[in-house]
C-alpha cells in the first residue's frame, strides 16, 4: 500500500499518519494525567455551581471543558468538541479534578455491567432505528 519509502524520518510519519503537531505544549509537557486511564466513554460532569471563569491558573481549554461538561459528556465527545487529542484532554481533566471542578465517572467494564435488561434495551433501541 505504501509506495514510497518513508526515508530516514520519524518512524510514525508517513502518509497514514495525521498532521505533525505539538499537542502537549498546552499541558506544559505533561502527558500523563494525575489520575490514570479515563475511558473514552467515561462521563465527565462539572461540579454544580462551578464557575471556572473566575478561577486563576486555568487555561481557556480548561474553562471550555467545564462548560461542555455542564451536562454529562463523554471524554471522546469532549476531545472532539475541543479539537484536542484525547491524551491532552485527560491531562486537563486531571487538573480540573484536582480543583474539584469536575467529576469523572468511569464506565463499568462491559463484562460486569450490561445485564440482561441493558442488553434488551440496546436491542430494542436498535430495532427502533
Amino acid at each position, binding site marked *: *500500500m505504501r509506495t514510497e519509502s518513508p526515508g530516514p524520518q*520519524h*518512524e*510514525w*510519519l508517513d502518509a*497514514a*499518519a*495525521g*498532521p*505533525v*503537531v*505539538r*499537542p*502537549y*505544549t498546552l499541558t*506544559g*509537557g*505533561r*502527558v*500523563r494525567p494525575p489520575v490514570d486511564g479515563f*475511558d*473514552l*466513554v467515561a*462521563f465527565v*460532569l462539572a461540579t*454544580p455551581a462551578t464557575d471556572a471563569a473566575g478561577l486563576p491558573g486555568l487555561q481557556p481549554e480548561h474553562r471550555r471543558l467545564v462548560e461542555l461538561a455542564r*451536562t*454529562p459528556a*463523554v471524554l*471522546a*465527545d469532549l*476531545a*472532539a468538541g475541543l479539537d*484536542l*487529542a*484525547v*491524551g*491532552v484532554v485527560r491531562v486537563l481533566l486531571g487538573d480540573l479534578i484536582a480543583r474539584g471542578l469536575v467529576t469523572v*465517572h468511569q*464506565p*463499568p*467494564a*462491559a*463484562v460486569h*455491567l*450490561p445485564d*440482561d435488561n*441493558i*442488553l*434488551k*434495551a*440496546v*436491542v*430494542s*433501541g*436498535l*430495532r427502533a*432505528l
Partner: protein
Amino acid sequence: MDSVRFDRQAAPAPVPLALKILIAGGFGAGKTTLVSALSEVRPLQTEEVLTGAGVGTDDLFGVEGKSTTTVAMDFGRITINEDLQVYLFGTPGQDRFWFLWDELAFGALGAVVLADTRRLADSFPSIDYFEQRGIPFVVGVNCFDGARWFSLAAVRDALDLDPDVPLVLCDARDRQSGKLVLIELVEHVARQRGEPVPVG
C-alpha cells in the same frame, strides 16, 4: 420521551451509561462508512498522540516542542434512551496502532469485524485480536457493488471462524443493514453470557 422518571427532583442529573462497540476490519472494508450510517450525529474524530518514545513516557518536560503525530479515530453515537448510549469506534487500520486498540477494547461490549470478500485476509488480524482477548464479535461481510459473491459457508471456512461466531451479510452504507449487524452482536453477547437472547 416515552418514560417517566421518578427521581428527577431527588438527585442531580443521573450519569448515563455509554457502551463501546468497536468497528474493525481491514483498510477499505467500510468501517468509517458503517459508523457514518449508524451514528445519529455526523461522525466525529478523536485523536491520540503518538510519540517516538512510546506509551511508557511519563513526561515530555523539556521536549514540549518536539514534533509528534496523531492518529485519528472515527466514532459515532446512538442514543438508546436518556440513560443509555452506544458509542461506535472505528479502529485504526494499521498494525502499529495496536496499543490504541487495547484502549478502545477495554471494557467494550463487543466488536463488528467488517470483511471484504475481495480481501478476506485483511480481516484476519482483527479476528485474531478479538479471539485472543475473548471479546465477543460478529463478522459482517460488506457487500459492495460488484463485489464477488461467495456463500457465507465459504467465507466462514476461509476465515476459519468458530461455529458460534455470527457471520452476516451487510451493506455498510445502509443504516437498516448496519443496525441488524449490531443487533446480531448484542444477541451474541447475551448468548455468550448464557442469558436468554433478548427479543426486541
